[in-house]
Every structure is written in structure tokens, then in C-alpha cells.
């Protein structure tokens, strides 16, 4: 099997699993307990916090453990919105290609009377700092722009956007769930006020993540209860998961450059191969994209059938077609970069892992080429395109 869905989740590394195991049977104490056994758990928790902080250029007191990326996004946005509203600022800037954890939170805020500006992400899937600057108003309380997109892998100029926000005195949050462990993060240098990450995207465990919040940024509590996480997130800490996350992040950060270099070469080989399929096009910028992300649209076919046939060939992939999303619309990200519906239904995302081989890349190219050809041959839509009864969107 070739697992090419690392943007969905990743396999845990051996080291991360090993880092977790002692906390199930050996050091299972509650970090809130005062006896030494509990305090040992507390010490290890704080040590992990310190190690994670140092990977991000943050202070340990700025690291809050959450149940994952979604919770971190929710808490960051709700906090900034409500502290903004207290000062009469109820305008938020974001982009049309954010993850639903961000977009649905913004929808909730709209119902609370907030005004949301979603910036256009253009054909290349990238916003500019200048566009953010132009959208900032007197009453803007938050700019939230993702670091890297989960579907098309495009990387936003986070440092430049951070600088603009800092200059204008507006809080800046970035959903770095796809970036953490894959792209360099330095919250101070990049002027990031809040950042979300999730361990399962960098070979750590699922259900654990981080909300980084710069000292001085007021956080609202989403989960009320005990005094864990400085009163900002109640609930007995998932210590084993935190230990796994810290280990995974350290490994990812120390190998980042080497991994990126190798994966970028593999990614580009895959892009080059799939580019040879006629009437298909890469989605998102070719250069400013995650080292592991490949995303194409192919005319005349539907994504779910493509995925099922690739599954038969041992390839795990994903698509933004309506029929795979369980909704009637194709991916909002593909629509945001201007893909028409009929083309967005035929999308394919292959997100490769660090250990992918050239043989696997070549196998994927051959498999996708075969399956696209096969499905086109039974597609009346494709027949109409070939016969000139409908117009092609892409060139050959």
C-alpha cells in the first residue's frame, strides 16, 4: 500500500510511540496531584511544553495544550473576537480557503454580529500582505490566515502578514496545522500572536494539539472546569499524547530541511508525471507549496470513482469532489481558486510522506494515468468534450 494521504493524517513515528508508552502504565499519575508520583507527571508535562515552545520560538507559558487543531482554531478566534468586541471592534479578516474549523467559527461569529471579510486567494491560492493591509479597518480585531492550505498546499506569506498586523496593532492568528513540522516557524520573528497546530499531521498522535498565544493575548476558556492549562483549558491533561507530540515535533523540526529537500524533489517528479495527462492542471502555486502536496484537477471524471479505483491499486488518496465530501458542492478551496464546479469534481490530492520512494512516485503516475483514461472512456461528459459539444476548461 502507498499511503499518499499525509495531509489527512500521518503514521506515528516509532520514537513518538515509545515516548508515550511509559505514561500509560508507569507514570500514569495525574499532574494535578500533589504527591511525588503526580508531580513527576507534572514535571514531564512541563518539560514537553518547554521543548515544544523551543521548536516554535515561543515561551513555555505561551503554549496551551488542546484536543487538536480544531479546538485551537476555535479558541484563538473566539478569544480574539470577544476581546475585540469589548473594545467595539467587530471586524475580522480571513481568507476563502481556510479550514472549516476556522470558517465555521467565523460563521458563528457572524451570527453574533461580527463582520467578516474573506480575502480572495487568486488563481494561485495565495493572499498578499498588501491585500491584508488594505482590508484592515479601524474596527478590525483579528486577521486569521492559514500558514499552508490542507488541500492545495499553498503557503501564505505569514511573516509579511504578521508584520503588517503588528504595525497596525491587529491580532494575527495562523492555522499552522499543515505547516508545523514541515515549514519553519518562529512566532517572534514572524510576528504571530496566535498559532494552531495538531500533532497527527507530523507523525504524532491524534487528538492533541497546541494553541500558541503570545503573552498579553487574552484567552477565553472554551472548556470550563478545573484549573489545568492556567485556567484556560480544563480537563486532566492527555499526558501520553503530549509526550508523543513533543517527541514528534522535535524530530520533525530537526530533520525539516533535509526532509523538505527530498520531498520537494519527489513532489516535483510526481507533478511532472501527472502534468503529462492531457486536460489536467495542477491546483495551487507550483513553488510556494508544501513539500508533500500534489493536487490536480482532471476534466471529464469524478473524484470518488478515481479514489476507489486508486484504492484498488493500493493507493490511499483524497479528492475535493462533492461526492467524497458528503455535500453537494465540491471543495470550497478549489472553488476559491476559481475552478469551475465541473472541474472541481475531478480533483485528486496526493500528499506524500517523507519516506516515499521514486518507484512509488512512478507507480502513482502510471496508476493515475490509467485510471483517468479508463474513467474518461466511460464518461459522457468526456465524450462531449472530445466531440466539441462542451468546451474544455484546460488546455491539452
Amino acid at each position, binding site marked *: 500500500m502507498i499511503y499518499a494521504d499525509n495531509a489527512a493524517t500521518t503514521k506515528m513515528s516509532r520514537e513518538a510511540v515509545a515516548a508515550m508508552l511509559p505514561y500509560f502504565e508507569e507514570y500514569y499519575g495525574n499532574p494535578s496531584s500533589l504527591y511525588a508520583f503526580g508531580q513527576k507527571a507534572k514535571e514531564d508535562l512541563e518539560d514537553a511544553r518547554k521543548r515544544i515552545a523551543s521548536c516554535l520560538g515561543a515561551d513555555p507559558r505561551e503554549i496551551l495544550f488542546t484536543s487538536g487543531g480544531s479546538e485551537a482554531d476555535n479558541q484563538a478566534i473566539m478569544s480574539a473576537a470577544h476581546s475585540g468586541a469589548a473594545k467595539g471592534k467587530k471586524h475580522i479578516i480571513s481568507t476563502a480557503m481556510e479550514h472549516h474549523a476556522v470558517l465555521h467559527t467565523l460563521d458563528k461569529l457572524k451570527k453574533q454580529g461580527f463582520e467578516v471579510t474573506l480575502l480572495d486567494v487568486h488563481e494561485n491560492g495565495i493572499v498578499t500582505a498588501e491585500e491584508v493591509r488594505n482590508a484592515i479597518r479601524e474596527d478590525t480585531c483579528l486577521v486569521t490566515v492559514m500558514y499552508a492550505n490542507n488541500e492545495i498546499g499553498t503557503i501564505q506569506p505569514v511573516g509579511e502578514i504578521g508584520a503588517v498586523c503588528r504595525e497596525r496593532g491587529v491580532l494575527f492568528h495562523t492555522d499552522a496545522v499543515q505547516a508545523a513540522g514541515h515549514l519553519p516557524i518562529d512566532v517572534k520573528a514572524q510576528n504571530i500572536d496566535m498559532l494552531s497546530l495538531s500533532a497527527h499531521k507530523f507523525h504524532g498522535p491524534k487528538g492533541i494539539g497546541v494553541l500558541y498565544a503570545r503573552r498579553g493575548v487574552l484567552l477565553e476558556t472554551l472548556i470550563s472546569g478545573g484549573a489545568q492549562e492556567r485556567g484556560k483549558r480544563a480537563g486532566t491533561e492527555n499526558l501520553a499524547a503530549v509526550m508523543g507530540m513533543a517527541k514528534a515535533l522535535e524530530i520533525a523540526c530537526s530533520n525539516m530541511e533535509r526532509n523538505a529537500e527530498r520531498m520537494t524533489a519527489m513532489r516535483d517528479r510526481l507533478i511532472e508525471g501527472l502534468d503529462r495527462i492531457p486536460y489536467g492542471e495542477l491546483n495551487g502555486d507550483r513553488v510556494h507549496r508544501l513539500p508533500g502536496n500534489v493536487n490536480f484537477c482532471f476534466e471529464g471524471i469524478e473524484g470518488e*470513482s478515481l479514489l476507489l479505483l486508486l484504492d*484498488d491499486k493500493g493507493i490511499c488518496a483524497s479528492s475535493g469532489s462533492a461526492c467524497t465530501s458528503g455535500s453537494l458542492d465540491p471543495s470550497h478551496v478549489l472553488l476559491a481558486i476559481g475552478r*469551475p464546479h465541473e472541474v472541481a469534481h475531478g480533483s485528486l490530492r496526493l500528499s506524500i510522506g517523507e519516506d516515499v520512494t521514486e518507484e512509488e512516485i512512478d507507480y502513482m503516475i502510471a496508476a493515475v494515468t490509467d485510471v483517468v483514461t479508463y474513467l474518461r472512456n466511460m*464518461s459522457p461528459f468526456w465524450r462531449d468534450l472530445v466531440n466539441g459539444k462542451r468546451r474544455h476548461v484546460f488546455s491539452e
Partner: protein
Amino acid sequence: MALYSEKVMDHFRHPRNVGVIEDADGVGEVGNPVCGDIMKIYLKIDGDIVTDVKFETFGCGSAIASSSMATEMIKGKPVSEVLTLTNKAVTEALDGLPAHKLHCSVLAEEAIKKAVKDYYDRNGIPYDPAQFPEEEEEGGACRFR
């Protein structure tokens, strides 16, 4: 549990009756590319019997499998019987479909009915228009929204 039943996957992987009948006696196409599903049915009719049937589908696993199953179910049947084919019968023959996938399978029934209507029209055979689903407009909103 897999998304689809073994029966669905069998018809999806090995669809029966894929193709085109150049000299078809009735052709029906429903759906549109914007919605992500198009189904086209070609019928060969000889003395009121469907002697051959072919289909082309642009769509998901559910759409392809139900096209395949539906064509199997009408082959060799009199036209009057073909018109009684329901989406429910196709779904049952496939050992069921996930609830959110049912709408993708409706197209098979509709495309077949449209092909029969085309056959009636071509041959001046009278019929009750209420028997057939309403024409949809190209570029209209996707249904089931």
C-alpha cells in the same frame, strides 16, 4: 465496514454494458457536469423488447454501479416493464447504498425513462407525459440541495 456493499463494488469495478449504441432506438441523458453526475443510456428496441442496452456515466461509485445494475435489470424486458423500474429496486439489487449516496443512483432510473420517451417520440408512439420525469435545465441548480 467499507463504504459500499460487495455488490456495489462488483458493479463499480466491472460495470456491465458500458459503451455506446451507434444506431440506438432511444437515447436518454440526465444530470449535468456542474453537479458532478451525468448518465447516458442507449437502448436498442426490437418489437417492444429491449434487446440491447449500453450506458456511459460520469459520476461516483454509486452512480456507476447503479447504471450498471439498472442496465442489467432492463435487458431483454418489454418496454412497458422497463418503465416500472424504480431507483428503489436498483438500490435493493445492489444490497443497498449509503443514505447520502442514494441521490446519485436516481439518475439511472431517470435516464432509462428518458431513453424510452425518446424511443416513443421517434416512433410516434403515444404516451402519457406524466409518466416521465420533468426536463431539467442545463446550468440549473443541482437537485437535492
